[in-house]
Structures are given as C-alpha cells and as structure tokens.
C-alpha cells in the first residue's frame, strides 16, 4: 500500500470522529463564560485609554513635585513669647516672623532691639484704627544678617552659664547656644574678668563651639589673648613735675618726673594670626621710649 492511499484512507474517514457534543458541555461552557468577565470589545481602544491615563498621572505627579519644590519657602514660625522684656527694650509680642527653621534658635536667643523712648518697631504693634477696633500687628521681618551686626547689643549678663573655680582654673559652661561672635565676646569678657589671676587656666565650654582654653599670663600687664598696644602718644601723662611746681628752669632733675601707670590708655585689639596660623596671645612689648621720653625718664 502506498503512503498516499493510506493518507486518503484516513482523511476520507476522518468525519467518522465527528459527534455532537451535547447540551451538558454547552452548559459547562456557559457557566465558564459567566465566571470569566467579558473582555472589552475594543482592546486597542482600552490600551490607548490606559496609556493616556498613565501619561496624565505621570504628568500630574511631576507637576506636583515641581510645585512642592517651588513652595519650599520656610514655614511660618512664631517666635515671640520666648523673648523676655528688659528695660528699654521692645517686646515683640504676637509677632509672626517668616524665618527658616534652622535660624529659629538664633532668633530666639537674639537680644531685643533697643530704641529710644521705648518705641516699638514700626509695624509690629497693634494699631487702633477706629471705634476701638484693633488691627492685628503687622509682620516684623527680622533679618538674620542684621541681627549679627553691632546694632543689636549682646547682653552677656543674660547668658545662662555655670562657673566652677577649682584651684588654678576657671571653668565656665554655657548652657545657651551662642553664635561665634557672641562666644568670642563672652570669652573675652571672662578673660578680662580674670586678667589679674596670673597662671589661671580659663576654660569656656559652649555647645557648638570649640573648647576655649587660655592661661592668664603676666597678669600685671593685663594680657591674655588680647594684644596690648600702648599708644605711644598717650602712653603716659605726667601729672606734675617738681620742676614745674618749683619753677626751676635750670634743667631737669633725674627722677623728678612721676606719672601714674593707671592713666595709661590701652588699646585692645584682637589677636592676629601669624602666617602659620599660630596664635596669638603673644605680648607685644611697649615701644622703646623716644629720646624725649628717655630724657624725661632720667
């Protein structure tokens, strides 16, 4: 038998397999179709709708992110009630200040602005308009740069600190947060207070600052980290001379001119750094006296 005959034999009789499946099978198919949700007729349209929705959602998210970034402007912080009043100072009560959160502590610590006659800063005090209606206080913008300047006086007496005085040492722990300039002022003040305690180690601790250590040297010359420069002109002022008192014109007498050391006017300057960065604290010796001074000093 040839292959073709074999194939024809089966092909011609393949209809013998056909058989009506029956209603039971249709019931199963119908039940299965009910279980499966009917798919949308136009899948392409559905896909396009989904893509469009995703695109719109993505654009909305990006826009929201940009909006949030652009609105990053500082939260409103109310800083007022922590400011204490002091004589001659203005109370910023119920002031609302736009300020960055990072600067809040600095502002809280800042001393009050002193103005003559205890007048409030313009726009900060409530105004009586008419019929007893009080308008809310205006915004008082506090400039952080302005705070750092000398226009606002830093009151060292209000700084919270504890002082320990073990033998040969003065240890000061500051509880308040200070700016760099305030810390520098405080250390200068403490050193000045203990300027006469020769050999005493001054230690100042404050949060956010390097530990300040300074040994008082040559107390009688009133030194420390502060350089002393004696003004050559106002170095001393003779109070009286025996020559002047006695109207002697014959010449100056050695040792006859006296002056008071206390009357020396000192200019204190900040310690300057040398090239290698070292300090500081070196004592600048007084200039050699001029010829006239030497003569007077005979």
């Amino acid at each position, binding site marked *: *038998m040839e*292959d073709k005959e*074999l*194939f024809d*034999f*089966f*092909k011609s*009789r*393949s*209809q*013998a*397999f*056909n*058989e*009506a*499946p029956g209603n039971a*099978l*249709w019931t*199963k*198919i*119908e039940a*299965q*179709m009910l279980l*499966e949700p*009917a*798919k949308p*007729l*136009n*899948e392409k349209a559905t896909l396009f709708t989904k893509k469009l929705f995703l695109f719109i959602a993505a654009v909305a998210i990006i826009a929201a992110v940009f909006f949030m970034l652009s609105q990053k402007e500082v939260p409103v912080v109310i800083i007022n009630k922590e400011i204490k009043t002091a004589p001659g100072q203005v109370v910023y009560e119920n002031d609302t200040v736009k300020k960055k959160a990072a600067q809040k502590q600095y502002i809280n610590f800042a001393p009050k602005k002193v103005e003559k006659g205890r007048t409030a800063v313009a726009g900060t005090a409530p105004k009586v308009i008419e019929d007893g209606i009080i308008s809310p206080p205006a915004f008082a913008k506090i400039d952080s740069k302005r705070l750092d300047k000398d226009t606002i006086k830093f009151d060292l007496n209000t700084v919270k600190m504890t002082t320990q005085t073990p033998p040969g040492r003065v240890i000061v722990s500051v509880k308040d947060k200070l700016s760099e300039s305030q810390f520098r002022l405080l250390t200068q003040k403490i050193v000045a207070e203990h300027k006469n305690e020769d050999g005493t180690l001054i230690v100042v601790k404050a949060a956010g600052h390097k530990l300040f250590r300074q040994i008082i040297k040559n107390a009688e010359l009133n030194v420390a980290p502060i350089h002393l420069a004696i003004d050559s002109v106002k170095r001393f002022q003779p109070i009286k001379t025996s020559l002047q008192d006695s109207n002697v014109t014959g010449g100056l007498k050695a040792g006859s001119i006296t002056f008071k050391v206390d009357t020396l006017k000192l200019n204190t300057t900040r310690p300057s750094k040398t090239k290698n960065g070292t300090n500081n604290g070196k004592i600048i010796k007084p200039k050699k006296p001029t010829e006239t001074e030497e003569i007077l000093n005979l």
Partner: protein
Amino acid sequence: MSEQQLISGCIRQDRRSQQQVYTIYGAKVLGICKRYMKDRERAEEMVMNTFLQAFGKITQYKNEGSFEGWILRIAVNCCLMELRKKTTFDVEVPHDNIQLPANDGADAFFNDDIEAMLKILPDGARIVFNLYAIEGYKHHEIAEQLGISEGTSKSQLHYAKEKLKKTFFSTNTPKTASHGR
C-alpha cells in the same frame, strides 16, 4: 441566521448566537479533539477550551478565511498545546518496537473504525500522523507547532505509517509481536 450575523452576535456576547455557533461547529470540533486525545473526557475538555477561546477572541477574526476553518484551527491548537505539555517525542523510533495485532484483514476487523485504528499508535506518532495525513501540515510546520525537529517529525510519521500498514493493510501480516526479527 447567517454566518455574519452569528459572528456579530458573538461579538456582542449574545448567548443565543454563541449557542448557535456551538451547535453548528461543535460536532467537528469534538471530532478533531477526539483524534488528538485518547479519551473522551479530555476531548470534551478541549472542546470547551476551544469555544471559550473562540468567543473570547472573536474580535480577532478578520473575515479572511472561513469562520469554520478559524474555529477548527483553534481546536487543533488547543489540543496541541495540551499535548505538548505531556507528550514526549522519541527522537528515533526503532522498527523493533512496532507491535502487530494478532488479526489479519484489519480493515474488515476494525470495520473502518479509524478511531480505534489510530489508538494503536503511541501519542507522538498519532499526533504527527494526524497533522500530516489528515490536517495537511508540512514537516517544518509540525516541527514548529510541536517544538520538535523536522527529523523527529519525519521519524514519527514513518513509524506511524509502517505500523498502520503492517497492522491493517498487509496481506502477510504475522500474528505475533516479534515481527521483523
């Protein structure tokens, strides 16, 4: 109801149209599934899958061929997908494995029951024979459909032909299974 009306009804998910399609083409679909599947239960399961797929993807029918051909093609594909999971196609079928029935004059014995005749073939050979001899597929198409090589397809077909010939169409058919040794 015309074929086009039936298709439109199926697109609208109309149950009556769908049932009509099932009634018209169900017999042929079941016939195909019975040829590929050995038992009736699995054949009916394939019929169900075929109609579910046809109704679910009715929008993909492009009116390019006959609607009947499209549904029967789905039926064949459903069967092949199922068989591909469970059928192992031996790369080479030795002739020694051909088992012969003990009866002469097979044509008369099986009384043209080709369903019973095909059942003597192993799964792989039966599928390839169905695809090649009855469906008209080429070897490369069979290889692509079943994920096998063309050589395997040819080998399986050769085995199926030889076994059917020797079993049912040979005048000197030996009665024992040790034929050819």
